């Protein structure tokens, strides 16, 4: 680990990508993630890597496709409207099984929405977004240090599975400044990519990067292969964190920025004698349903808090299989809920004044 540095989330993400061996980065400007391309446009030429500002998010994701197919580590970033434009490319990338990292510093929607933080791209990120049966691995950091750690993990998982991995942040996380340290990766050997299009020399069969398969049986077999990959991710890549859940009578479920707010609300509730705790999904897909289900084994109440009108709550309910009441508190439009508001909701639920 390096010494501690005080860094903004977006910039720490960029530096972590470079540490992970990201050779190329393609993006188009959009608030609230512009510090990331600005940082990388400065840093990448210094170390002989490629920064290229694309003409659109569509072009950027297709540049990612080309570079990933050529066998190098590559990343793009954007915020909600730009991520919508990348969906076609993501479907192709997933279909062609190309490793890459996509960052969404999400903002309020729908449409042009606002430039303030939001979590209303949860469905898009975890349930598809583009066409076809595919999944991204979606990682949701809640601190600047976790941005660094999960970005490096994202590159490793992308290569391991030959699959796109999304870092899901929000405007607040990107702007936040916190101390971080970077792991020493100097002796990490990146995996070979014998499938990449590097030129057909006759030493291997020619490599074709594609997603077209006109024969139904072959396309079905390809889909089954993808599903086996997703099954492995579901079995081994669920990640979550818990805070004071052991004795909790009420468990809050939140990710990213909102999880931090919920922690403060939980501390305030505990001071008032309410036994509250936090379950924080780190991987939004695969959703850490088993760990959450275990919390549901005990008689307790659940409260999902999101900066959306209620998206993750569907996965929470599925995980708990309707065995326990699940309440919801959400703010949208770029409004970040305050700890006091969340505490107020907790108190209402505990007092029996809310129906799940």
């Amino acid at each position, binding site marked *: 680990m390096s010494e501690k540095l005080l860094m903004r989330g977006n910039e720490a993400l960029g530096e972590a990508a470079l540490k992970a061996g990201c*050779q*190329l980065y*393609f993006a188009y400007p959009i608030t609230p993630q512009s510090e990331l391309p600005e940082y990388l446009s400065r840093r990448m030429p210094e170390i002989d890597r*490629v920064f*290229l500002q*694309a*003409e*659109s998010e*569509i*072009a*950027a994701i*297709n*540049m*990612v*496709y*080309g*570079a*990933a*197919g*050529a*066998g*190098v580590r*590559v990343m793009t970033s954007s915020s909600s409207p730009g991520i919508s434009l990348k969906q*076609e*490319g993501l479907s*192709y990338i997933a279909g*062609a099984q190309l490793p890459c990292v996509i960052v969404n510093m999400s903002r309020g929607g729908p449409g042009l929405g606002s430039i303030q933080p939001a979590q209303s791209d949860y469905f898009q990120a975890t349930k598809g977004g583009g066409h076809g049966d595919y999944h991204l691995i979606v990682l949701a950091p809640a601190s600047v240090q976790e941005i660094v750690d999960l970005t490096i993990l994202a590159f490793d998982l992308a290569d391991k599975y030959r699959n796109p991995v999304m870092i899901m942040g929000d405007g607040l996380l990107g702007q936040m400044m916190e101390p971080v340290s970077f792991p020493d990766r100097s002796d990490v050997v990146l995996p070979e990519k014998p499938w990449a*299009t*590097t*030129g*057909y*020399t*006759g030493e291997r069969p*020619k*490599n*074709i*990067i*594609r*997603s*077209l398969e006109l024969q139904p049986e072959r396309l079905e077999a390809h889909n089954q292969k993808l599903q086996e990959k997703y099954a492995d991710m579901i079995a081994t890549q669920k990640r979550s964190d818990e805070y004071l859940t052991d004795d909790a009578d009420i468990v809050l479920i939140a990710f990213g920025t909102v999880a931090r707010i919920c922690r403060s609300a939980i501390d305030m509730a505990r001071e008032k004698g309410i036994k509250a705790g936090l379950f924080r999904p780190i991987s939004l897909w695969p959703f850490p349903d088993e760990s959450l289900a275990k919390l549901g084994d005990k008689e307790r109440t659940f409260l999902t808090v999101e900066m959306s009108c209620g998206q993750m709550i569907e996965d929470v309910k599925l995980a708990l299989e309707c065995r326990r009441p699940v309440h919801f508190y959400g703010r949208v439009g770029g409004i970040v809920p305050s700890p006091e508001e969340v505490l107020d909701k907790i108190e209402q639920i505990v007092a029996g004044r809310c129906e799940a």
Partner: protein
Amino acid sequence: MRLVFDRPQSLADVQTHYCPGCTHGIIHRLIAEAIDELDVADRTIGVAPVGCAVLAYNYFNLDFQEAAHGRAPAVATGIKRALPDRVVFTYQGDGDLASIGTAEIIHAANRGEAITVVYVNNTVYGMTGGQMAPTTLPGQKTTTSPYGRDTDLAGYPIRVAEMLSTLVAPQYIARVAVNSAPNIQKAKRAIKKAFEIQVNDNGFALVEVLSTCPTNWGLTPEKSLRWLEENMIPYYPLGDFKVPKEVE
């Protein structure tokens, strides 16, 4: 006996799916010949479009990537930036390049990406059944312009070679046709030059190739060649629109 003609090494020994008389096949051969003559097959990566040439990767002995509809120049940019010493080319139809992919081709050309673009203009969306394209000629009947292309409604056909040659960065832009033996010879020279520009000068080059679609034009292969000559060439004049400085 002296062998005067053979399949180029870079062209795979397989049957193609193209319709009888379609000139996509000729253009494939010209590309393979150029790659062979420049001896760059082992470091060339092709990018296939969405269109009748979507399966182009089956016909070349080359590594290939299949791009989403219109995005081939962006995919080629990604490959070339990742592997700058490789030779990268796209093969794109007029629907792919001049309609859904206009942003990608203009900006790849404007950046002077060191890629070669072979742009096959047959005035229609061949693969989807001959619908009107931005290149469909005024009055030309297609499956979505059954009364003939109405320029009041749909505007005029886009001349891609002329349009892109207004940009500063591209080094070589030409339009050729594959309707006759002499024109095929010229097309060959242009395509080879477009690869040479990339290999020697690290610049952007595009060759627009006027091509036939007998199936969707509803003409025999022979009549298609004549239709191309009589209708396309007057609207889409052949020649070099941008040449490298030293040969100007």
